[in-house]
């Protein structure tokens, strides 16, 4: 048995020894260096570009503009609307305009600084509410990127039938992924003249296709390799350095390396969407929810990236993990000239969790019900209907996570005046929303008598390589881990889809199981389980060719109805309950998250340490989201003024694993990557209320906002 065990991660030794080659470590003899010249304006027409001084610099090899792109100049995961290099117009600060390729990084940088660009400014649409009204269109189709609705039952009647209604506005801001490793990569031509790009990425096959469009050459002529990757969280789903590298290699025929500085990464990489949420909840005196009406306005910046995904996912998760008979959600995401907002751990759901969890606590207080009891009363469980009227037939362990936290909740005791406790619950659809999102892999045997697993899954540090190997070993009934992993290379693997949406353990795990079933049948026929060695099996089969065993899985979903979003957008959901204890210093406004109990229904923990690691990391990010992280365009330039939590800000975390096995998942497993973060900020905000009587509806609730709110509250109490 490998599943459920703490198998040492396959990447651990290389990382501990420092021998793992991250994208920043990649080198090739004679390589050139690329830097991107970027827009200093949020919205402008480019009148003139003068590269004469830059070109005259010794060591400059090429300066590339959009005119040097042989194929299509637009990319995008959902919609092709973002130029690799601006063609006459820039729509946000930091937008790429030119790529400078030079003999050294320093020359590339100096040359970039020498480029002179004349702009004619256009109106800077710095807010989605301005975007709604503005006659200035960021794209020809208008400033509304996406509008999704969830309609279930009759919300108006639901409110009529309620005993009380609570309505509030919540807002969140931009959050940076802040991965340890900034975007980087190396491009070169291989022996056959094909373009190869190795980079820090969450998806290799997608990037292969984008480079193919950019260079107008067949995908087979491109190879994308995932370098050891220092974190992603959604920020390395979009094309980052890969397009510039491919273009530079195509023009220079030489190896080209590039890496973003931290400042550059902060400036240009996608951010978590700021969402403005007006949330109305109706309930009966017994605590049961009768209706929810939510209006969401999101700021996606000038390009789609994953804006449509966030729009839809926020909508279908808007009720939270509760049975609500009547639902009306309008979710709209607008283009602005702010930073591009994209995929960021949770795709809009952490923002909604802040709202639905605050609402629930407020209702509980108004009717005199315990916050845990109101959650138990409304919790989705097996047989429940979600907001999209999907029947939860399978794993649905929210109640079990609530029960796991219950003893700590019931026994909670405030330590002092600033002490408070809060709960946060969440559910999260595993995999992409209502669209096909398959994963494939293949298995074969080696002459050394080992199974070889070819995986296109990008392990970005979360541990999927190890988890997939554990799944394969158990699926084959192997007693030792006799598997070689060939990974992260479009030449040697099938498309496994992106490492996002908490999908790899569940979906790629199932693809591995599928391939394993076929290999197992073959091994059975060959006598493996009667004691014949894999070496002998290989030898006997070598003449006729070693068969390859393909595995495939696409979770069963239905496309959301275009008007009502009703349907089954996900095959399965993760569930969680967090309980957080805070200590608020009312004098300074400093809130410290002291202790967290985090119970997660993961279906089945393939690797217990990995699951715990995800939960600890999710809590850390939740602390940042709740208390300090805030990207301010034009002001947040580095980690000097973008505050991330440190180890000293971390609460003690007790991770509790609940296993309500998912029949469609590999050995019952679901996903935990995003769920780990989602309820934490909500739990902190609820705890702050418990400690101080102040409701923080705008994140982050940093020391200044909290202090001012406390002051205001004090004054109101005086009156």
């Amino acid at each position, binding site marked *: 048995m490998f599943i459920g065990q703490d198998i040492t991660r396959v990447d651990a030794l290389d990382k501990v020894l420092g021998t793992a080659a991250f994208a920043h470590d990649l080198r090739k003899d004679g390589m050139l260096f690329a830097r991107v010249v970027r827009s200093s304006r949020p919205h402008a027409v480019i009148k003139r570009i003068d590269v004469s001084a830059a070109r005259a610099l010794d060591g400059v090899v090429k300066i590339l503009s959009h005119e040097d792109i042989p194929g299509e100049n637009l990319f995008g995961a959902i919609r092709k609307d973002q130029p690799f290099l601006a063609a006459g117009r820039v729509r946000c600060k930091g937008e790429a305009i030119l790529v400078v390729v030079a003999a050294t*990084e320093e020359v590339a940088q100096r040359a970039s600084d020498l480029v002179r660009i004349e702009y004619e400014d256009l109106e800077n649409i710095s807010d989605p509410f301005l975007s709604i009204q503005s006659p200035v269109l960021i794209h020809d189709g208008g400033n509304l990127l996406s509008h999704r609705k969830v309609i279930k039952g009759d919300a108006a009647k639901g409110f009529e039938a309620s005993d009380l209604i609570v309505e509030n506005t919540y807002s969140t801001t931009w959050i940076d992924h802040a991965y340890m490793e900034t975007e980087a990569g190396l491009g070169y031509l291989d022996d056959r003249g094909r373009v190869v790009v190795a980079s820090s990425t969450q998806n290799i096959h997608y990037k292969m296709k984008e480079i193919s469009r950019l260079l107008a050459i067949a995908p087979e002529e491109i190879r994308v390799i995932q370098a050891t990757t220092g974190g992603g969280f959604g920020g390395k789903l979009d094309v980052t350095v890969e397009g510039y590298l491919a273009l530079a290699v195509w023009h220079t025929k030489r190896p080209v390396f590039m890496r973003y500085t931290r400042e550059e990464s902060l400036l240009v990489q996608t951010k978590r969407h700021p969402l403005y949420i007006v949330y109305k909840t109706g309930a009966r005196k017994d605590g049961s929810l009768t209706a929810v009406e939510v209006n969401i306005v999101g700021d996606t910046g000038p390009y789609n990236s994953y804006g449509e995904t966030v729009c839809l996912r926020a909508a279908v998760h808007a009720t939270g993990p509760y049975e609500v008979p009547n639902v009306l959600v309008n979710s709209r995401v607008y283009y602005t000239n702010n930073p591009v907002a994209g995929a960021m751990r949770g795709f809009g759901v952490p923002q909604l969790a802040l709202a639905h969890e605050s609402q629930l606590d407020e209702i509980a207080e108004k009717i005199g019900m315990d916050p845990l009891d109101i959650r138990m009363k409304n919790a989705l469980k097996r047989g429940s209907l979600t907001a999209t009227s999907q029947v939860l037939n399978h794993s649905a362990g929210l109640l079990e996570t609530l029960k796991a936290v219950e003893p700590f909740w019931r026994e909670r005791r405030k330590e002092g005046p600033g002490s408070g406790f809060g709960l946060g619950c969440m559910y999260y659809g595993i995999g992409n929303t209502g669209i096909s999102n398959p994963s494939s892999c293949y298995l074969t045997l080696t002459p050394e008598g080992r199974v070889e697993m070819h995986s296109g899954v990008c392990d970005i540090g979360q541990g999927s390589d190890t988890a997939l190997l554990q799944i394969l070993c158990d699926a084959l009934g192997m007693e030792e881990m006799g598997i070689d992993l060939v990974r992260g290379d479009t030449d040697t693997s099938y498309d496994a889809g992106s490492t996002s949406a908490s999908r790899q353990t569940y979906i790629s795990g199932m693809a591995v199981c599928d391939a394993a079933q076929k290999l197992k049948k073959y091994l059975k026929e060959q006598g493996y389980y009667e004691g014949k060695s894999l070496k002998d099996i290989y030898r006997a089969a070598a003449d006729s060719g070693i068969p390859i065993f393909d595995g495939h899985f696409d979770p069963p979903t239905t496309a959301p109805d275009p008007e009502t979003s009703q349907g089954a957008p996900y095959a399965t959901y993760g569930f969680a309950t967090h309980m957080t204890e805070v200590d608020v210093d009312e*004098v300074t*406004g400093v809130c*410290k998250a002291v202790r967290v109990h985090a119970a997660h229904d993961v279906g089945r923990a393939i690797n217990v340490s990995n699951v715990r690691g995800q939960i600890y990391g999710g809590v850390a990010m939740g602390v940042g989201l709740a208390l300090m992280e805030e990207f301010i365009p034009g002001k947040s330039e580095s980690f000097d003024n973008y505050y991330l939590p*440190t180890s*000293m800000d971390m609460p003690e975390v007790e991770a509790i694993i609940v296993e309500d096995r998912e029949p469609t998942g590999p050995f019952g497993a679901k996903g935990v990557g995003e769920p780990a973060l989602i309820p934490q900020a909500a739990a902190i905000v609820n705890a702050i209320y418990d400690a101080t009587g102040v409701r923080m509806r705008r994140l982050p609730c940093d*020391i*200044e906002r909290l202090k*001012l709110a406390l*002051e205001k509250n004090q004054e109101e109490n005086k009156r």
Partner: protein
Amino acid sequence: MLPKFAGVTAGTKDEALSWLSSLKNPKIIAGGTDLMVKMRAGKQYSHIIDVAGISELLGVTEADGRISIGSATTHARLSSDGFIVRNARSLALACGLVGSPQIRNMGTIGGNLANASPAADSIPPLLIHDAVLTLEARDARRKVPLEEVIVAPYVTSIDGKELITSIEIGPLRGYREGYRRVAKRATWAISRLGVAFAIREENDRFLDVKLAIGSCTPMPFRAKKVEDLLKGAPKNKATISEAIRMALEEIKLISGIRPSYAYKLPVLQGILAEVLRG
């Protein structure tokens, strides 16, 4: 990327002073925790003179009831030096809150003063200890009170040919001394507010109070008027309220009203109340 520069390592104080006087555009580096950031942002110097290893600039000594701190002594050392902990507790506490462990291991007290940030944690404690800096050039030496050295945010009266060689402070014994600071996160953050205090009291009466406030005005300042008010005053609610009122008044007098005061002044009020109440 850093601009080009030449680096020299001074083995002795005299060597450092001689480099300083003879080179065209030199800059002293000790820990480099401020300087490297500025240079990365484009600040250029022809020569960087490393003084971190000069033994004459290191350590804490006592003579004639005064404490002398070598300018290249690190924050880490000062935060844990037994002598400093006993005689200048606020300084030890403040140095222990500077940046992160890595920054405290590299950053020095002299560098903190030369940088003259309004938010420098070491300055308020040094102010209440009446710190006097020794500034040396190749053929000159002078002693200047800290209050006269810092003339504006990030601006000092130290000449380009001068080196801070030591900082002299007076010990405070029999005082309840400490440093309170507020920052946006638990560590590795610039102080939003810093208060150094040393209070001697007896029978519900303030005998002597020393108070300095950082991160609030263009330069950290010693609240002398408040100190005068409290000297000998009864320790009660009315005195404390009046002291706080006066402190806020003094701040507004120095820098007018700033947007950040919406947060800072109420917090300072709370901290001062806690500090004075004890």
